[in-house]
């Protein structure tokens, strides 16, 4: 079981504005033809970051290099379930995300990777995005346990769902080992099911 307790995440921010940013934009499908996640950072927002002639444009990821906290808007990560998307973000350097809301699978994937995904109302999020734009080198801290974000001398409340918070703080976001220890109970549950071979 991973021993990594994640109680806070900090660093500079990157505002990625827009609602309903889907995983096809975050990680275009044509880059998923690899059997490992190793190179995914190179493909993050690949098309959005480039002009038609292939040169890098002023997409925030090109501007806020080295950032650790992504600040996004509504329904971020909707669409395909590809874990390639948060994997690419993580490998690019993102350790935590703050947004108005996240698509479920994307949030689950973040949890599996130990990336806190905090939500806040529209005003709080856009204030933070504005602040990053004015202070690109400014420090932002997500306190997972207290459910707050601190930046520029102020602390605002955010929400982190209970299971995610518990998992990160207790260092049990790697669920494989946790569930593996219950394998005999799993077999009992399976054996009770009408459709499972050998069930009563």
């Amino acid at each position: 079981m991973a021993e990594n307790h994640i109680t806070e995440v900090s660093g500079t921010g990157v505002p990625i504005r827009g609602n309903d940013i889907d995983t096809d934009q975050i990680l275009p499908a044509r880059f998923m033809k690899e059997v490992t996640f190793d190179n995914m950072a190179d493909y993050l927002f690949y098309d959005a970051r480039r002009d038609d002639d292939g040169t890098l444009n002023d997409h925030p990821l090109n501007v806020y290099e080295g950032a650790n906290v992504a600040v996004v808007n509504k329904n971020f990560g909707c669409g395909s379930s590809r874990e390639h998307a948060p994997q690419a973000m993580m490998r690019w350097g993102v350790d935590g995300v703050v947004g108005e809301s996240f698509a479920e699978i994307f949030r689950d994937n973040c949890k599996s990777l130990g990336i806190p995904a905090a939500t806040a109302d529209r005003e709080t999020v856009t204030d933070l995005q504005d602040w990053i734009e004015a202070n690109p080198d400014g420090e932002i801290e997500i306190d997972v346990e207290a459910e707050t974000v601190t930046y520029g001398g102020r602390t605002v409340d955010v929400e982190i769902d209970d299971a995610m918070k518990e998992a990160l703080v207790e260092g049990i976001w790697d669920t494989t080992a946790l569930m593996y220890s219950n394998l005999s109970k799993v077999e009992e549950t399976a054996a009770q099911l009408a459709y499972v071979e050998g069930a009563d």
Partner: protein
Amino acid sequence: MSRNTLYDKVWEKHRVTELPNGQDQLFIGLHLIHEVTSPQAFGMLRERDLDVAFPDRTYATTDHIVPTETEKRDRPLEDAQAEEMLSALERNTGENGITFFGFESGRQGITHVVAPELGLSQPGMTVACGDSHTSTHGAFGSIGVGVGTSQIRDILATGCIAAEKQRVRRIEVEGSLGEGVYAKDVILKIIQELGVDGGVGHVYEYGGPAVRELDMEGRLAVCNMSIEGGARAGYINPDETTYEYLRGREYVPEGQEFEELKAYWESIRSDEDAEYDDVVTIDVDGMDPLVTWGINPGQVIEVSEPIPAPEDFETGTERKAARKAYDHMDHEPGDSMLGYDVDVAFLGTCTNGRVSDFEVAADVLAGNTVAEGVRALAVPGSETVREQCEARGLDEVFIEAGFQWRRAGCSMCLAMNDDSLEGDEVCASSSNRNFVGRQGSKDGRTVLMSPAMVAAAAVEGEVTDVRRFFDDRARTVSADDVEEVAD
């Protein structure tokens, strides 16, 4: 909190225990895998020296990267990356004793088409796959959830996912569908009304007269797009339509065993007095066919409606999203989608790649030809679908009309193989996502619609009301009608 719904009952039966983080450990009764999202998970398993816990409850096929032209399916595949993914899947399934429906099996196809047609997906199951459209399987009355690669590792190693229960929204679909209006239109209507994020935090239970009347393939199309509405899962209570569909399928037991299973299926239906977190009613009586006009599935209208002007939206963010869509799709305020030029027609996918979808499309195409300059692709959702269509002679109808008749795969739904939009081509598509770049070109434009509407668009070379192809044209709308409404 919901009570005594199918979701509550099936969850309870599969709940192993509560985890220290407050989530439930949930047993997964059917695990489907494909080549794109599983190799990393098998890699993680090897790193930890773990075995696959329930190989018998795991089935694999290949869909996303496979070529759909017969001559390109020889091994090794021309595309080295695709070959690597396919061989990795063969190796991983072989080493772990997992059934793999590869090319030679004759049953290869899109996971969400293959598992239902073989009878692997059954009522009262939990179904998971590293693919968001796992919601499709809910059509049988099961909980189908899409998962990420780390969760695939969890399922391989433990047969379980860690999850928390969602709220249950009952969607009561009233009325009945007119001619030329299909299951696809029903789910597009639901997304139009509830939005692309309306379902976040919820699973959708679809019911009501219009849903009850749908056949299994229609129900699969509805549940398939639950995820486009933001819901993690969507389901329909099983009934005689479900049981009759299942009877005699390859993986469905017969005789006494079938009756016993049926008793289980009946027992997990939502009770009469089940409680839901909320109930929404949607009326589809007199509804016209729907098409998307923008770049997410919620930007959708009935063909009789004008494309909404960005200013008509209530919130600033919706206005902005509409402007982005106008830009990408090249619209002017007041435009109708009718008459919107189409370069490509694409039939297939896990939404609408089943036999009945090709049947309705063939009905429209019979005696017609694809408009000049339109590239038209018919891609069966599985090899089984292809065979059944060919047995009925449908392939000939498509070929005569000017369609290419292909082999099974995801194809131009996400263009991970050679099937891709070029430049700013417009595609009339029976798929489920119209996101920018989804069909392989970042300037490509996707218009989602039912298979019948795709066939009609192929013939006319533009978006059109398919009902003009039917005998009774009473309800057909034209672009002129839409302008009148807009004025």
